[in-house]
């Protein structure tokens, strides 16, 4: 249940560390709260210092950027179709650009398997562990 002012950890290598949700997109159910697999608009609150000479071609974000992201883990339990509930110890997200493509190239940590059902197969395939 991520809404306005909800903070999430960023688990890809785009450079951001902590983002704050500003808006949940396309969410007409759930009273406007975002869950796993929902796209949000967010502000980068904390980012890794950007090295001046960067050899890689990964887009690095700065503190204060407004970007889009998809929620991959929530502390609120999510119901799977077979009836079990899954919850994680933190809220986490992966940054995206306006065309629903990932900004980073790698994902560190666990992601929820509900992403596959919502159509984020690329993120699921990049993740080291899917629960």
């Amino acid at each position, binding site marked *: 249940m991520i809404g306005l002012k909800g903070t999430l950890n960023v688990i890809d290598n785009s450079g951001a560390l902590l983002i704050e949700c500003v808006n949940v997109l396309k969410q007409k159910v759930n009273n406007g709260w975002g869950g796993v697999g929902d796209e949000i608009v967010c502000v980068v609150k904390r980012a890794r210092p950007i090295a001046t000479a960067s050899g890689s071609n990964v887009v690095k974000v700065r503190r204060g950027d407004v970007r889009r992201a998809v929620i991959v883990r929530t502390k609120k339990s999510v119901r799977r179709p*077979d*009836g*079990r509930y*899954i919850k994680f*110890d933190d809220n986490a997200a992966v940054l995206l650009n306006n065309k629903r493509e990932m900004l980073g190239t790698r994902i560190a940590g666990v992601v929820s398997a509900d992403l596959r059902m919502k159509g984020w197969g690329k993120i699921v395939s990049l993740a080291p562990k899917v629960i």
Partner: protein
Amino acid sequence: MSLNLLRRCARSLSTAAPSYPFSKIAVIPPAPATPPPAPLLQGKGLMAHLADTLPSADKLRLLKTYFSKRHPLRILPGSVLSVTMGHAPTQFTGVLLSVRRRGIDTSIVLRNVVNRIGVEMQVFVASPHLKDIKIVQRAGGGTGQGKTGKRMRRAKLFYLRDSPEKMSSISAGLRG
């Protein structure tokens, strides 16, 4: 024509399960040998009757041994269990934090730490998607043979969410 009549009589007299023409997966259990008692037809004792008949035989056995309150082989909170589901993600291993006993709605909460992130899963025991439950370690360490294990001093171990060191002590006993 008399043969057809004979066949029809035989079919109506047989106690085999009737076929459902719209689905091959639907299972219609055969009618019970004794008709339901009169109080049941009025609705008395309905929930108890459902608790005995709705789950399949091995689920009922699971509920009555592993998840009962006083059976000598019951699973205590603090044990490490491994559940296998029918579809992805198939396996989940974790410490049993709580058993919520509600008859057919009995559910368990398993907690594990994966890639330094804690994950909790609530599994309903009587679900047909649940294929297998394996006891990796009984509470307080030890094999699953015979003893229930050492009883933790709480029925629900939600304090493990805040102390990673106690979680790692349980898992250290597992690998050792």
